[in-house]
């Protein structure tokens, strides 16, 4: 019974969502041409878009954000937003899969507590497929690198997690470090290499980059000659490199490695190019309680926040912002493909890396 | 006041058999009286008591306290123990280890229906503790009492609430003779003064005789005889009772003739004996004659009346207040209890005098079947 209810509900509460909007609209009857409902808002392309949005958003006063970005960082970003527009951001933070889980479950029950969602690409893609996001026609989209913009526009990439290679400088010397994948097959790396336990998308990316046959063979050879040990969690992996426990890691996020390096840890990182990158992005809810604030925040994330993200060591997707961290050849993991081909890659990963027969 | 009718209680045991702990218990205790249950270990005294308290749900029967039906298997009535207003001393004391002496005693007053002020409670508690000679130990942890002190505490706890009905399961068994005697009289006085109807379980014959208005002798789950102390002692209805209440000598015999006025003449191994018999048996039937040791008078001179036998002192046992003699009469051994001043050494030839009134002729076998239970009329 619950399942059916879950499906039937959205319609009814969508209308209740509209009611809220109507209230807002009545209060904000300033510009007659400016739309007050979400469908209108996301499509509006007038020149006064920005001022009107700010005005309407200020009336709403609040914004509810579901995110998987580190709370500490998101707090900073939200503080910036609040400072600029005076809109209070309520943050709910969880792991990306939980963000997805929560939104879907709430939506099935007809509850729409989030206005904007900021999380990993694959989860955003899933939300899009669940028809829980709405594309926004923002003038700032053009500032972004082309890969950041999804074809359907349901969400937009705002920052990148770039997989790079890191090593412990007291255990390995810079001159010993291979710059090609094949270089890793040198037996002197036996027992030194580790990878994060769930980087299936990275794995798929590398294989695709090398060509399926070649790539698969490479990983098979690598496991056979030197072995790969698995560690759960990217940050743990990075920390373990710093502590010397893992002399060489294949998949760490470059910003984390950079932070530790700057803190003085005996660690260095580089990328065997092209580096594989995971996109994180932002999307606007289909039935937001605060539609104007939601659109405003979306704009903010792809525009004003970009430079700030770079400041706090993220890799932004804006062409306008320079970052030492994206100074390399990058390939994106396609969120859609990950969703569709997940089973295939997972099976391969299990077979080769986890050595399950 | 208390009526128990046809009470049965069976326990299933682990082997799936049933243990018949109480069978067909019927008794009546008038208001303000002290009724005693006496019987060998494991005969069902505690079980009966617990059934009256409501701690055990009987298999069948009926229990009425003060005119109120407490339990009836027919009418499906069962009143919860805490609504029965019955005080109880447990055989295992059941002292609460997390409270001190004072708190243990005060508990029934604190939780009772009557609301009492702190001062009143304190007064009553101190009085109860005084009665059981625990004054000065109020603040000792209950777990740090000696065995006897714990037992007295259990008693104080039952007394303090002045219940309508008081059940006492061997309340004095761990006390020394002096204290027991004192507490026994204290208890009796309190019971009489407060008019608390009481049921007293004891294994101590003299306690039962000294305290009770009435005694029920039990065996193997059944009541064998109910009567006043004197009735039970002097006119036991069966061999079991005669044997259980005090020691006795049994002499087997065959009825020769009925003398009348309740007396018979019986032919026994120690000679022809005139004995009292409640049942008037036909001549020729087998009887057992019970003669209590203290009713055998031992002397050098031949007594002039009553039954007389001749014998020899076999052994002497000094027991403080008296001396027990084993006497050989023909092939039979008889026991006699005499005053320590009687200094006849073992081997002495003596005469045994036995008052016919004190020689009780009994018909039954050792453990009488149920239908032979003798219930002397209740005297209130």
């Amino acid at each position, binding site marked *: 019974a619950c399942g059916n209810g879950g499906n039937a509900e959205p319609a009814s509460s969508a209308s209740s969502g509209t009611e809220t909007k109507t209230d807002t609209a009545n209060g904000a009857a300033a510009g007659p041409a400016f739309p007050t409902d979400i469908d209108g808002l996301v499509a509006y392309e007038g020149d006064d878009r920005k001022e009107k949005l700010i005005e309407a958003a200020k009336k709403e006063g609040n914004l509810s954000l579901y995110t998987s970005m580190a709370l500490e960082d998101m707090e900073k970003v939200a503080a910036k937003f609040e400072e600029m527009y005076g809109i209070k951001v309520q943050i709910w933070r969880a792991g990306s899969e939980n963000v997805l889980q929560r939104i879907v479950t709430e939506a099935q029950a007809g509850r729409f507590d989030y206005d904007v969602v900021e999380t990993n690409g*694959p989860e955003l893609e899933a939300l899009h497929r669940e028809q829980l996001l709405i594309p926004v026609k923002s003038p700032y989209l053009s500032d972004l690198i082309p890969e950041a913009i999804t074809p359907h526009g349901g969400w937009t990439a705002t920052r990148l997690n770039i997989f790079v290679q890191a090593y412990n400088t007291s255990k390995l010397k810079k001159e010993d470090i291979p710059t090609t994948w094949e270089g890793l097959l040198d037996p002197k790396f036996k027992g030194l290499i580790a990878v994060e336990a769930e980087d299936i998308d990275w794995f798929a990316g590398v294989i695709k980059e090398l060509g399926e046959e070649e790539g698969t063979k490479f990983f098979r050879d690598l496991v056979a000659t030197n072995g790969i040990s698995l560690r759960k969690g990217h940050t743990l992996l990075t920390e373990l490199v710093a502590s*010397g426990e893992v002399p060489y890691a294949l998949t760490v996020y470059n910003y984390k490695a950079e932070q530790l390096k700057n803190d003085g840890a005996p660690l260095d990182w580089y990328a065997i190019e092209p580096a594989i990158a995971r996109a994180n992005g932002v999307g606007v809810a289909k039935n937001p309680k605060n539609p104007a604030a939601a659109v405003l925040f979306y704009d903010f994330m792809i525009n004003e926040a970009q430079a700030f993200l770079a400041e706090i060591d993220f890799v932004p997707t804006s062409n306008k912002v320079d970052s030492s961290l994206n100074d390399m050849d990058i390939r994106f993991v396609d969120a859609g493909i990950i969703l569709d081909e997940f089973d295939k890659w997972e099976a391969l990963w299990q077979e080769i890396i986890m050595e399950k027969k | 006041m208390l009526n128990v009718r046809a009470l049965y209680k069976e326990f299933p045991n682990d082997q799936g058999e049933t243990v018949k702990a109480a069978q067909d218990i019927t008794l009546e205790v008038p208001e303000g009286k002290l009724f005693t249950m006496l019987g060998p270990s494991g005969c069902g005294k505690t079980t009966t008591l617990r059934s009256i308290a409501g701690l055990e749900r009987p298999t069948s029967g009926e229990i009425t306290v003060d005119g109120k039906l407490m339990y009836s298997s027919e009418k499906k009535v069962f009143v919860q123990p805490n609504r029965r207003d019955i005080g109880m001393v447990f055989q295992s004391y059941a002292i609460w280890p997390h409270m001190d002496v004072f708190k243990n005693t005060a508990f029934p007053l604190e939780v009772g229906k009557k609301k009492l002020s702190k001062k009143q409670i304190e007064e009553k508690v101190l009085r109860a503790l005084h009665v059981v000679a625990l004054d000065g130990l109020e603040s000792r942890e209950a777990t740090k009492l000696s065995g006897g002190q714990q037992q007295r505490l259990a008693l104080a706890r039952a007394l303090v609430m002045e219940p309508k009905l008081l059940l006492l399961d061997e309340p004095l068994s761990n006390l020394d003779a002096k204290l027991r005697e004192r507490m026994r009289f204290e208890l009796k006085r309190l019971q009489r003064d407060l008019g608390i109807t009481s049921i007293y379980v004891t294994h101590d014959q003299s306690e039962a005789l000294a305290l009770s208005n009435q005694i029920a002798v039990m065996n193997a789950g059944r009541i064998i005889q109910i009567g006043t102390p004197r009735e039970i002692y002097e006119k036991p209805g069966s061999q079991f009772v005669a044997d259980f209440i005090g020691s006795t000598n049994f002499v087997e015999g065959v009825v020769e003739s009925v003398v009348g006025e309740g007396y018979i003449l019986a032919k026994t191994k120690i000679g022809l004996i005139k004995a009292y018999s409640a049942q008037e048996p036909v001549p020729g039937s087998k009887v057992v004659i019970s003669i209590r040791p203290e009713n055998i008078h031992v002397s050098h001179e031949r007594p002039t009346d009553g039954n007389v036998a001749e014998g020899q002192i076999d052994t002497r046992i000094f027991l403080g207040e008296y001396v027990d003699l084993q006497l050989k009469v023909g092939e039979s051994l008889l026991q006699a209890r005499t005053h320590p001043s009687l200094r006849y050494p073992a081997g002495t030839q003596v005469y045994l005098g036995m008052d016919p009134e004190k020689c009780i002729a009994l018909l039954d076998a050792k453990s009488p079947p149920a239908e032979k239970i003798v219930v002397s009329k209740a005297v209130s």
Partner: protein
Amino acid sequence: MLKTTWFGPTTTLEPKPLIDFKWFIIGVTIFIVSYLGIVPLAFLIWQSFSTPQTMTQAAEFTANNYVRAYTDPQTLVLFYNSFIFAAGTSAFSLVLGTLLAWMNERTNTPFKSLFYALAIIPLIIPSILFTVAWIFLASPEIGIFNLALQRLFNTDYVFFNIYSLGGMIWVEGLHYSPMAFLLMTAAFRSMDPSLEESAMMSGASIRHIVFKITMKLAWPALFAAVLIMFVRSIESFEVPALLGMPAGIQVFTSAIYNAIKRYPSDIGLAGSYAVTLLIITSIGVFFQSKISSSGSKYSTMTGKGYRPRAMDLGKWRYLTAGIFIVYFLLIVIIPFLVLVWSSLQRFYSVPSVQAFKTISFENYSYVLQYPSFLRSVSNSVLLSIGSATTIMLLTAVICWIVVKTRIRGRWMLDNIASLPMVFPGIVLGVSIMILYLQFDIGVYGTLWILFIAYLTRFMPYGLRYNTTSMMQIHKELEESAAMSGATWGTTFRRIILPLMKSGFVAGWIYVVIVSIRELSSSILLYSPGSEVISIVIWELWENGQYTKLSALGVMFIIALFILVIGMQLFTKRIGVKES
């Protein structure tokens, strides 16, 4: 003379109040417990027969989940690994926890007075931290133990390898040993010493006494401890993930985890895996309730001559004192010091003079200023104390019904209340979330939903703690209160609860700690404003702020330690005192 005749008119007592307080309480409790236990179960079963549900695709009935879960040959391997791991863990922690509890409660081992609070430190340390601390202690590459021994003997032989099944069992077993310790402490505490003394007078050696008397009498507690720890370690995630993964040891929880993590979330598959847990637990609970209904066999707190007293070990007490000290140093103090050490660093490095120069208290001030930290702390305190108290009271009533009454079907109640033990936390979180979204009574998005989740999740543990204590109370202690005229409620409050104090408090402490640590359902159910401390811990961990997390862990340990000691002192006053 007043005479009533046998067959004369009889009256029953004055009519009872419409609802007897006792039956009211019992009824309400049964209702709450059944509600808490059955609802997620129904959800789990229903889900395990459904295909994944999305907005665009409705769930359908299927048996495929079971087919997938149980025909995959991989599953067998996972089960096998999990079984070995769980069996090893529960055996190890049981032995350790029981030994410590025995030494602490039943013997005159020196310095034991401080021990109760200290022994539960491993439980207080968040399991991620605990595991990582052990990586730093015993990993082949950087483990301090290995490095120290290698330097000492001048070899490069690897003495300890934490990345192995043995290592996993060691870490998990240590982490759970306080659970056994708490349970067994409670059991030993309400045991009449004269039962041991009489064995001693029978000529039995201490070994005999321990195995033939003490342990046998504590059997319900032992069994409960095994049951709890077995299920918990089958369910546990951190140790297999952090230690098993590098060694290629995969367990059953990773299958559940993977099923839920993918999109669309395959709760059905996870559910059908969880059914295995359900079966294992139900069997365990069934045997447990058989034990509980075996009546007075385990009543060791009597109303006659009961005198709490410890056994004199003679010279052996130096050995036991030695065990205490080793336990402290190796298992409590050293991991704690590792935490303290790393909390003073910017990133973890092996202790050295150079690293020593860089220590600072920055991490502590960072944690204290962490967004929503204070709110999380107060929410967590409120929730954990609230749910621990509620759980212990609820389950006290439940286990009274199960242990002390002869109501038919009472074992069902025991089983229902134990059911939530089998739910992986995340499944429970989802089911509670869905329930209160669909059935909107205003708890969604508030602290109350977390409260309900905690109640559900930890009820089984509370029940186990209470049951073992309840069984030890001789029935006459309760009966004498009834004979004193006390109502059931009064008896419960003034006699039963204080007498089962040791188990009650142990369970309370346990629930407080685990509910402060609870993450997997909290993360789904919390909302802005109802953050809890475990979210912060997880947050720090996800961000890789290991050193800051250590700082939080250190504060956490100290705070809980103080709480536990405070609780101890407080309850010392209301319970049975040892002489």
